[in-house]
């Protein structure tokens, strides 16, 4: 057993863990933060996406002991009491889910994705890799969100919600230049 300090959503907990325990199981079964979902437990569905120091990771592929002392944010840590995070609000408004099982992962992934984009991290569909700022087009959002499955097929609502929060006019953004590589 290993002792690890898990800092989740601003709260620190010291827990004794088998070093083989995934961050996902530690969150769900030790800290009882069940907002993070286990859809496949092998990194294929994205339902367990959480943020570590602001970057998105798959909690099912992470060992909890690796993340001692890091700032972990789960869906429960987004927004404030009585006030939803703008993405949470937008997912409701644009009908970005049906059953909702993928939603925690989708929203955490979108939060991390928007931060990546703001930081100038390109994706494989980014037309000009050297550009400091590229528009967050619908194609960019789809590419960057493609690790999060939604079996209900609410993808259009998800993309609409993210575009709304990113403040991008989707119709204008799709008229971007062709790939130059």
């Amino acid at each position: 057993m290993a002792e690890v300090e898990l800092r989740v959503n601003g709260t620190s907990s010291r827990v004794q863990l088998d070093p083989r325990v995934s961050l996902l199981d530690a969150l769900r079964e030790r800290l009882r933060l069940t907002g993070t979902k286990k859809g496949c437990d092998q990194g294929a569905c994205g339902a367990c996406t959480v943020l570590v120091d602001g970057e998105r990771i798959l909690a099912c592929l992470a060992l909890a002991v690796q993340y001692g002392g890091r700032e972990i944010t789960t869906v429960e840590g987004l927004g404030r009491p009585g006030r939803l995070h703008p993405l949470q609000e937008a997912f409701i408004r644009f009908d970005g889910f049906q059953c909702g099982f993928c939603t925690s992962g989708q929203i955490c992934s979108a939060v991390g994705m928007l931060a990546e984009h703001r930081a100038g991290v390109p994706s494989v569909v980014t037309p000009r890799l050297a550009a400091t700022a590229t528009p967050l087009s619908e194609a960019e959002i789809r590419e960057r969100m493609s690790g999060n499955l939604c079996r209900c097929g609410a993808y259009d609502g998800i993309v609409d919600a993210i575009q709304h929060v990113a403040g991008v006019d989707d119709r204008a953004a799709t008229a971007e230049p062709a790939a130059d590589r």
Partner: protein
Amino acid sequence: MSTPTRTPAGAPSSVGGPGGRIGDDAQRPDGVLKVRGEFAYASDLWMDDMLWGVTLRSPHPYARIRSVDVGPALAVPGVHAVLTSDDVPGEKVYGLELADQPVLALDVVRYQGEPVALVAADHPDTARRAAARIVVDYDVWEPVTDARAALGHPTWNQVHDAPAAVTELSRESAHLHPHGNLVRHLKVRKGDPEPTADVVVVGEYEVGMQDQAFLGPESGLAVPGEDGGVDLYVATQWLHVDQRQICSALAMPPEKVRLTLAGVGGAFGGREDLSMHVHACLLALHTGKPVKMSYNREESFFGHVHRHPATMRYEHGATRDGDLVYVKAEIFLDGGAYASSTPAVVGNAGTMGLGPYVVPNVHVDCYGAYTNNPPCGAMRGFGSVQTAFAYEAQMDALAAELGMDPVELRCRNAMELGSETPTGQVVDSPAPVAELLRRLVAMPLPPEPATGDDVDLRHMPGGVSNTTHGEGVRRGVGYAVAYKNVAFSEGFDDYSTARVRLEVVGGEAVATVHTAAAEVGQGLVTVEQQIARTELGVDAVVVHPKDTAVGSAGSSSASRQTYVTGGAVKAACEAVRGRVLERARGLVGRPAGDLRLDGGKVVSDLEGVALPLADVLGDDAVEETVEWRHRPTQALDPDTGQGFAHVQYAFSAHRAVVDVDTELGLVKVVEMACTQDVGKAINPQAVVGQIQGGTAQGLGLAVMEEILVRDGRVQNPSFTDYLIPTVLDMPPMRIEVLEYADPHAPYGLRGVGEAPNISSGPAVLAAIRQATGLPLRRVPVRPEHLTGT
């Protein structure tokens, strides 16, 4: 006639406002919980003293069990119970339509993954380790893996190279069940038995096994009750049919087996049958402790039924002018090891299997067979999905043979109000099949694919993997139409129960709606609120948790809940309203007919009297419980398949545009367009969501989704090997929703959920055929089908 047009990009109309009535884009009552991660799915349930249950499953598709030794498992520290079929106190077999499936294996296992034993332990890993120590001695038999061979039918060589039927049935073990390998044979006979036609096209088709692939795995928590009964919190589609089967296995009366719906992470048919329900109850009753069971993804592939694989042979005859003269069809559905809902799926495939076309002479044989493949049952579209691939391919082949436009051929033969179906039923509500198609044709097409220097890799099949710069890429456009019965058919007593209460709480009028109808993500809870708000004129509507404390609502399947439970909620609201207005009549001295409920008040239209509900009700609550039925249907004639079997039909149509890299066999779906008649869109935003979701699952079956089964063994039980569409696979959609009221249905509505799942895939296939010129008789289409390699 004017019809509303709604597109996915359309802004929601009632955002942030209170409530939402019939026809509004009302917000879901579970929305905030779901986006905050606070909605309790079945896999999130927890009790501090609970045990974890796991299932030991057969590794063999077909074997006799010589012995089971649970001793080594019981010896593992932390294990509280190990159970086998000997520990099932009641009926040892269960099933939706036929009780033929063992709760735990009896002497023979008939599919890979069949549950054999259960373990409860204080930690899930302990339970798994203990299960691995159970010693089962199997006498392994050769599995029966071909549906036609299982029934002794000769094989068709064109699409299938199964072993000869005679070989299969010559073995004694080739009969899976005492009553043989036939689950159901439906015959549909109409008109001239020996028709002739100017033009005849024949085709054989095959559809692979699709998985529902809901993201939330099978899970539940069973809690032993002080009365010796059990409370089960579970993700399901029909609480009361679960309860009936659990009671039978536990030998307990319904009052001792109480079910409550836990959060459901998608269903799509895969939660109609029992999974861990009885198992968790057995373990809880045996140990006296709460027991949680939650499947992992691999186990989930073995834990629920799948969509039936199908082999189909169709012969279409038409006049030179393009009028259908006859259709002959033979349809074989592989039901796998146990019956599940195969009889009803056969009913659908047989009666809906010619599509929404007028066919004067019909000869259909539809068979459901037992094999040692995974059990198959309900999945969205339920028998209509498989046949749509065949009948729409036939319509395109016939159009090509006649030199006609495929849409024109469809419109020429399309059903309409007053048409007679192949099963002799007169279509007595709008059937705008031709209009759905013509509206698709009128929609603009996406821009032609770029060529030469203008090629953008991101828009090519294969994308930025740099597999093509446009060479070998062909564009194709295809159309298909769906035809689906709504609600349960063939004389089934299909009803729902709603309990509605109206009271004043803290000065505000509050309605409470209590039904057992499963919310599986489709938004039924929103619809229940919208109906209550509309009928009772209040803003605050509480949806009571779904449980068996109220009567059955029937299944959340067959596109039926908005119709049937919606009808029940409406009727219960009307009963409550009648009593409230009767009370008000005495207070205001006006006839009840002049009074209505609005804004939490009783209003008189003639004099504008507005009486707060608090003055009418005081501290009383008015409550009514109503059991509501749609008009009855009839069983089909056993010899001819004729009869008033379906209460309502759903129609949708798709146009697919694809780009195919004919050298590498890669398909990119460029755009999907869909038109659907929904009678009345109770929640337009949710209707669009159903169309998008159904389209995605149909596209998935067309080009990527298949459970690969070899010698009865599943080859790909994971999301790395069973692929479902991602956000990148789904193209932009154009959607038009039509609202032609069905005069027989509440508010004129028509079931929505399944039709778009039916027309989507065949449209994609038609588009790929047009792009490639290949016949493509099997779905899902794989790259090697396109390249011939």
